[in-house]
């Protein structure tokens, strides 16, 4: 029923992992950790849960992915040699090319016996596919992956690094996917911190809190919720008006706590 990401705190937030066969969108601006989270999901699948995976990249070259993954101690070349993981570097027109219900990556999905797939990043499709066709092509791709019983993670670029406006995608992708995980950079006491929250999961309860996370030498590590702050998603949060601060304010300005 569920596909564990292997990031224990995230699995708890998801109430037991990603729903099997669903499509999850990991959205965030550059440098928020989308690729790391997506790779970790595949690496854990291959090494901990006996679920092989496929990583589809468009702009980022596999050589760079091998190198970056190695900095987390993930040996992708070894996993590829063992037939547990495959990195495919292609372009959006290839990914959405279907001939007699077959897609060019289908043979690789079957060869690897993939149960998990990452497409990094779905935003690249916008540059190659006319806007009028994009939603339809995404819908076809999502359904194709579902028919193959893959549990998919798509990454998507959010252009707003800070601010109170958030556009996930311009084509209503947020309605097509089943789960949305939002990654955001926030400024707290003059430091840049990373925040993660789950915006939606179709058909399941989920944690509603905004949590801080770090990219450690072992990958994504989610820590405490931003309990004392409000407006974290705007990128410039302020301290919450807690009972304690309310009492202090009253004492300072009214004189009677």
């Amino acid at each position, binding site marked *: 029923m569920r596909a564990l990401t292997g990031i224990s705190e995230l699995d708890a937030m998801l109430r037991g992992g990603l729903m099997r066969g669903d499509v999850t969108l990991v959205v965030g601006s550059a440098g928020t950790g989308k690729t790391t989270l997506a790779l970790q999901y595949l690496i854990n699948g291959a090494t901990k849960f006996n679920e092989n995976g496929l990583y589809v990249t468009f702009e980022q070259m596999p050589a760079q992915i091998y190198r970056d993954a190695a900095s987390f101690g993930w040996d992708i070349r070894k996993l590829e040699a063992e037939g547990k993981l495959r990195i495919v*570097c292609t372009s959006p027109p290839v990914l959405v090319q279907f001939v007699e219900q077959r897609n060019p990556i289908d043979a690789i999905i079957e060869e690897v016996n993939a149960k998990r797939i990452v497409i990094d990043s779905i935003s690249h499709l916008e540059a190659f596919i006319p806007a009028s066709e994009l939603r339809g092509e995404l819908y076809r791709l999502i359904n194709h992956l579902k028919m193959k019983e893959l549990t998919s993670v798509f990454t998507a670029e959010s252009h707003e690094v800070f601010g109170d406006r958030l556009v996930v995608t311009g084509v209503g992708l947020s309605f097509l996917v089943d789960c949305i995980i939002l990654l955001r950079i926030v400024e707290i006491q003059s430091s840049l911190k990373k925040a993660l929250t789950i915006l939606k999961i179709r058909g399941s309860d989920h944690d509603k809190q905004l949590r801080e996370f770090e990219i450690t030498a072992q990958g994504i590590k989610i820590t405490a919720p931003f309990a004392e702050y409000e407006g974290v998603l705007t990128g410039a949060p302020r301290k919450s008006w807690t009972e304690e601060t309310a009492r202090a304010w009253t004492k300072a300005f009214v004189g009677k706590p």
Partner: protein
Amino acid sequence: MKETGLHELTEKLIGTEIKAELLRLFHMNPGILDTVESIARRIGRMPNDVEAEISPLVELGVLRKERFGKLDVVSLNTSKDKEVQEKLATLIEGGAKG
């Protein structure tokens, strides 16, 4: 594979700058499954120049080119590539001994 001399094989594999760049690209990134146009972009060349250089590598079997709908998709034929590399090593070894 047809008996090929060292000179002829190296000429076919890396006889031009673009061929050498293509082989380097595919060896470093064996998961490339892409159109000629996109591959050309990845090595900073023009599609027509790359198209001409891909053909001999496809003929040799190192690269695979498959028609998929409107697109020609190129990828590394890993087993044939390994075979060609072994052949090359044998020819170099033979040349060194001779």
